[in-house]
């Protein structure tokens, strides 16, 4: 079907405060398109399906291979990375919208700075003594390394927050990604030395206890990180930490 066209319904918004609206764009069909390639096609000649001139939708992207976390969007109602979303596998017409749990900046771009602030809050790093040459790092079994590696692939893309019912306008729930990072650093031989600091950051009202156990996060994660395992484990650790703190231990 060489003359087949693909219709995209794209949710647009001029800036942070204006009202959203939908626009239809059409491009000729070609096999093996992903959403990014389709958007790139649209911006080469940004006309509406009706023929009226428009402007290219704004979106975020960078690596185009599912490692940078930039191009998260809601495509046909499902939050995912636009680069790995293949047009041939989607029902048509295709709808593309920005994530809903973050403020829209413009069109498909949202402001995810809250996620990076949360990494700051939970102190998601190894507090090394300095960058000077202090020899080899701690030993680690390969089995433990493999487990930790699952968590260290988190791209801070926001999918887990987007699907979480606890993340809404009435709650500041920190979300699964940051909890996964606490799990990662608390399992590192050096990171474990400061694990209480990170548990303290998860102990508040917006911390791990706010998880409603919907388990959507683990299904939405594009890196298949076992987020619910991390939440369960950090929940236990926070409880133990609070008890210890209560009894002055």
């Amino acid at each position, binding site marked *: 079907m060489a003359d087949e066209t693909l219709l995209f319904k794209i949710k647009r918004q*001029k*800036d942070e405060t204006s009202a959203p609206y939908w626009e239809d764009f059409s491009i000729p069909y*070609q096999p*093996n*398109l*992903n959403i*990014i*390639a389709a958007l*790139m096609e649209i911006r*080469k*000649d*940004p006309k509406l399906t009706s023929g009226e*001139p428009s*402007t*290219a939708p*704004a979106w975020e*992207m*960078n*690596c*185009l*291979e*599912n*490692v*940078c*976390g*930039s191009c998260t969007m809601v495509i046909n109602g499902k939050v995912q990375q636009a680069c*790995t979303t*293949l047009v041939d596998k989607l029902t048509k017409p295709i709808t593309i919208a920005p994530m809903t749990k973050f403020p829209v*900046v*413009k069109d498909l*771009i949202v402001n*995810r700075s809250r996620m*990076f602030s949360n*990494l*700051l809050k939970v*102190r*998601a*790093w190894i507090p*090394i003594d300095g*960058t000077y*040459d202090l020899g*080899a*790092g*701690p*030993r*680690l*079994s*390969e089995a433990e*390394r*493999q487990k*930790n*590696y699952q968590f*260290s*692939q988190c*791209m*801070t893309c926001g999918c887990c927050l987007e699907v979480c019912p606890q993340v809404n306008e009435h709650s500041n729930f920190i979300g699964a990604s940051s909890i996964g990072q606490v799990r990662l*650093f608390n399992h*590192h031989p*050096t*990171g474990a030395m400061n694990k209480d600091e990170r548990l303290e950051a998860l102990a508040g009202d917006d911390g791990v206890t706010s998880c409603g156990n919907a388990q959507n996060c683990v299904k939405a994660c594009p890196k298949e990180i076992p987020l619910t395992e991390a939440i369960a484990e950090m929940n236990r650790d926070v409880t133990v930490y609070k008890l210890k703190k209560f009894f002055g231990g």
Partner: protein
Amino acid sequence: MAATVAKNKNPRVIVVGGGLAGLMTTVRIAEQGVPVDLFSFVPVKRSHSVCAQGGINGAINTKGEGDSPAVHFDDTVYGGDFLANQPPVKYITDKAPAIIYLLDRMGVMFNRTGEGLLDFRRFGGTQFHRTAFAGATTGQQLLYALDEQTRRAESEGNVKKYEFWDFLGIVKDDDGVCKGIVAQDLRSMEIRSFPADAVVIATGGPGVIFGKSTNSVLNTGTAAAEVYQQGAKYANGEFIQVHPTAIPGIDKLRLMSESARGEGGRVWVPKEPGDKRRGEFIPEDQRWYFLEEKYPAYGNLVPRDIATREIFDVCVNEKMGVFGQNQVYLDLTHLDKKLIDIKLGGILEIYEKFVGEDPRTSPMRIFPAVHYSMGGIWVDFAKSDDGSLEEGNPRNHQTSIPGLYAAGECDYQFHGANRLGANALLSCLATGYLIGPGVASYARNQSKAAHELPSNLFETAQSREQSYYNKLSKSTGTENSYKLHQELGELMTANVTVVRDNKKLAETDAKLQEYIERVEHVSIQDNSSWTNQLVPFTRHLRNMLQLARVITLGALARNESRGAHYKPEFPDRNDPEWLKTTIAQYTPEGPQLSYEEVDTSLIKPRLRNYAVQKEDTIAVADKKPTGTNGHVPEPTPATAGVR
């Protein structure tokens, strides 16, 4: 008058770029107690370094093979076809084990041995297990560790991040010394100047000049092109690495790491051209493992320039590509499936997601793609008594503009005419490690703090950029920036990559000049003043065109073949005439080329021959004076034709 240098009590440094080189530089400068303003086009955690897959080299010799930094040094210089200045290469190869240990201490989840030590794998251009790795997402893992350390420095108040900002240019004082930058907030489109006592550009490579490549979309080389146009020398621009193994795509050519071959992957084509059977159904005796046959000593792990030329030759000249197309098999199907999941999981997942086939059971179909620039902004180095570099010396990695530094892929150091796999992560990190203290001391030794300089210096630079932006955003015409970019990519990929021909290079430059004219007539359909993506892209496109000329004209001038630069008209390396660094300087008429001597003070240049063991090339070099125009006698007939 030999005035004593008044110490600058409030030094401040700007780092532009938040990939591996930029973040390591930031962390090291902040550690010296000098605050850093860190500018990045994207949140630094999303920088292009995440795309590096295979690993980082360091001769830690945990496999009892007798590896050492000295061998790593020799492999790197030899792999680079002797075009690299040797003291900086010695520095990074000596430093490599310490760099890997440092990143391990930062929490990188490097794969481990049974004893819990760092595991190492093989990579191209060496015969040792020298590459530390974290699955097949090593770049991502290293970047995250530095992103975390940067966030820690941020929490301590030593780093201020400016994310979603575009670098527009540097601010120079009346003496031509760099005193800050002008940048644009990509949300509000506000243009501002920022004073700094030193500026480090760490903005990565320019692969996007070639349209589709393995690079991320932000790798337009725009910052390098800006400082080039502001007077910084650009070196060895013509040396562009084309990686042998990538998956073709409409939006991107996705890298399939060299580690696939490091773990035992084999490259082949069916002996019968156009064989219609799928790879897994073709019997062993009907397959041509052309790299193993032609290069018995290194096999599938020849350096990238050689593997790329061979794949190109097999497909384009011999018409032996799989299914008659420009593709060859990269085969992992004979390897232990569980083991490759652990060691190569990241790339297997990419292949599955984008191609829809399982590389554990079907051989992957791949083709070369533009990957890396060996060339970049010219930088200085301060040689130490032992032939390496002097740590802490502010001359290291200073560009030809005082106060302006360059680090990472955007500089030209270390890799000569061809980079070895897994040396890029090392060079980015070792450079950041090296220059942190030097840049901090340079900033401290400025007689006056940049923020105390007359404000008109910064206002002038800011208004220059503002009026440029205003003019550009009002541009009307018939050209679409994205379409013109596509044309640029096709032109450059066709003529300035694997095989280069003087007539075509000259025609390419003529076309580039047409494009430079055409880009003046782009239609800015969208001149919105909030999060405008079209105007900054158009600006980057203009800069890409300037760098494209540097790459093309450098290639046109260099009448020899060396590393990634291959001209059938001049098939041999020609040391007497061309063992020299190309230097391009901007003039409004185009790049002006001159040449500079290469520092070969430590290893005597000898011809490369990956069909034999390296020791044999040393023996040959000792018998025969180097720098002749002749061939090394080839021990196997297969290396003829494609060098």
